[in-house]
């Protein structure tokens, strides 16, 4: 997507998911002085995940705003800024805290453009980590794709790698719409190649095939994509099963076409999602596959999800609560009637 229309050599750099996000922020702040950051402890403290390291010093307190603990205030003031032409990026220390801002995000940010009849833009980016796996227990271990994905007016992104994280965050900042940008704390350290291009933009609503295969389609995003890829590798090595793995990247708008296309080839699909099954993201994907390519399916679409319980603290219980590679493998075998 970078610089369409003109060919050029783009060098790649191997950077972490964390640095990709940081770089996107820095580049866009350098590019457009209307971009500014709000968040708890993003300034002096430099961010609990150090995404905003050095930013206060570089851009000053007007552009890097340490807010009180006030998620509704952060989201809502950012919306007001956006309506007046600024491009605020809000950091949720973790997305669990954004419940406090639910009304501001879901009943204001998502809808103002619409009920104003299009009189204002709403370029608010709300970003931060989500997900389980660090023994943070019930209040701090949630995922929000279906929670936000349900609401028209929002864009919901959940990148799985550094390149997408950077390119999608830059698209988010340059756009005119509110973007819920769901990072995953467990991925921050993960390194991968990112085009060394200040105009590296990844569009929303473009799912991609990240591993080709003809036996089964595995659909996922964010951290669970890596679980899916690991399972695919094991399946290939151990069973000779070649899974096609698709990274949705964006949950709203949801681009199902590559999934449908893949299922037309594989005739089988497994959807992998970290959190609770009921009314989770995988339900939409599974329902949509069945609705659209029913005749292509040789087996039911199977969902691999976390257990339907608030996240427990104890390590062994937490491990039982989240999906594992074996479960993906088992699901694949199930849709292939191999067990």
């Amino acid at each position, binding site marked *: 997507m970078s610089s369409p229309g003109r060919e050029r050599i783009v060098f790649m750099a191997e950077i972490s998911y964390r640095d990709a996000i940081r770089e996107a922020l820095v580049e866009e702040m350098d590019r457009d002085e*209307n971009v*500014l950051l709000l968040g708890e402890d993003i300034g002096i403290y430099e961010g609990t995940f150090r995404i905003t390291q050095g930013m206060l010093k570089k851009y000053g*307190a*007007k552009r890097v705003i340490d*807010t*009180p603990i*006030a*998620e*509704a*205030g952060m*989201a*809502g*003031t*950012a*919306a*007001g*800024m*956006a*309506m*007046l*032409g*600024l491009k*605020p990026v809000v950091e949720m220390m973790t997305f669990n805290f954004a419940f*406090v801002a639910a*009304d*501001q995000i879901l*009943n*204001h940010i998502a809808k*103002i*453009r*619409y*009920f*104003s*009849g*299009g*009189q*204002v*833009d709403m370029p608010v980016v709300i970003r931060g980590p989500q997900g389980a796996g660090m023994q943070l227990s019930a209040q701090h271990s949630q995922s929000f794709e279906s929670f936000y994905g349900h609401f*028209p*007016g929002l*864009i919901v992104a959940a990148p799985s790698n550094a390149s997408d994280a950077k390119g999608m965050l830059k698209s988010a900042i340059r*756009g*005119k*719409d509110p973007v819920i940008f769901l990072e995953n704390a467990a991925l921050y350290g993960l390194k991968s190649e990112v085009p060394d291009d200040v105009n590296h933009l990844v569009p929303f609503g473009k799912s991609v095939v990240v591993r080709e295969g003809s036996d089964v389609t595995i659909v996922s995003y964010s951290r669970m994509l890596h679980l899916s890829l690991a399972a695919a590798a094991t399946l290939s090595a151990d069973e000779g099963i070649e899974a096609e793995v698709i990274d949705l990247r964006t949950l709203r708008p949801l681009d199902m076409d590559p999934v449908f296309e893949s299922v037309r080839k594989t005739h089988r699909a497994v959807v992998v999602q970290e959190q609770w099954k009921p009314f989770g993201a995988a339900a939409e994907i599974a329902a949509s596959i069945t609705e659209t390519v029913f005749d292509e399916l040789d087996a039911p679409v199977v969902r691999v999800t976390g257990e339907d319980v608030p996240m427990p603290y104890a390590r062994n219980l937490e491990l039982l609560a989240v999906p594992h590679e074996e479960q993906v493998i088992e699901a694949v075998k199930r849709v292939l009637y191999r067990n």
Partner: protein
Amino acid sequence: MRTGLARASVKLSRNARVMKEHGSGMDLELGTVMAKQKERTAVLENAEVCAPEWNDILEKMVLIRKFEEASEREFRKGNIGGYLHVYSGQEGIVAGILTALGSEDIVFAGYRDHAHALVLGSDPKALMAELFGKRTGLSKGKGGSMHLFDVAHGLYGGYGIVGGHLTLATGAAYALRYRNTDRVAVCYFGDGAMNIGPFHEALNMAGLWGKQGMCPALFVIENNGYAMGTSVERHSALTDLSARMRAYNIPAEKVDGQDVFALRGVADRVVRQIRETGHPYCIEAITYRFSGHGAADILQPYRTKEEVEEHKHRDPILILKKRMKEVCGLTDDDISRMEKEAAAVVAGAVKFATESEEPAPEELFRDVVSGSGEDRFHG
């Protein structure tokens, strides 16, 4: 009419009572505020009351009243749907404050927002058409009564969630300063809105940003004594609402909301001050709503008919008319001409709204996100 005015002075003391019980706001001594306000009013009386502007202000207030009466009528006829909240009785608060703004200043309001649009200069036709849900409406019929937007005239929205827009106004004020303008953001909200979480988060941030000169916001409490059916005494632990604003380091003062002179005097001063300092300020306008909370609030079990009638003697339009008659020689003829004109404007607006077409079906999918719509309609 005479008795009315006689009783009005009785009610003035009710207003004074609120002020007295709570003090005035700021660091002024008890009572000083009332005196100061009288003083200011006196200044206005002598120097400015007869300026043509005051004629315009009265006209606007009359227009608002007629508009609200018409909208209630049209609601009963079924031409307006959803919720309908009118401003009758509270006109002074917008007329006295919004006329003190510059043309670049901006306004955020709640769902009781028709008056704000009218004073800011929105076309009554487009406003009524919005209430009717027509394509010629301010927002193409997609927002309705609770969500008036007219960005060209500085109106950044009416909002339906109590207290949900305080954050927006605070952020907007920051943006105005961030972009190095001297524009001011005004945010109206009801007494009942002061108890909800987002109010608190917004005001604390406004107070903090004010210290850096980064929050040129005027917060206006439309203290009409009730949140729907719950009186201030029953919804706020501390009934001195101005004092509550000072918990955010935001100076606040009570003003008689039925006295548009007093309001304008205060507004002129504080808007100037906000523009200079970038620090937020609050006006608590003590007022009264003449109609029910919304069109469905018929019984009004929370207040007596007598209470409503008494307050009608302190109708801000009556008070302004009386003063202009006394001081500027405004005549009954002038007034009835004014009223006829307003009625004609409103009738024209109703006619326009009635005759306008409903939105095109493809509007359903427009404005969801930027550029959405055209290519998505599959109805």
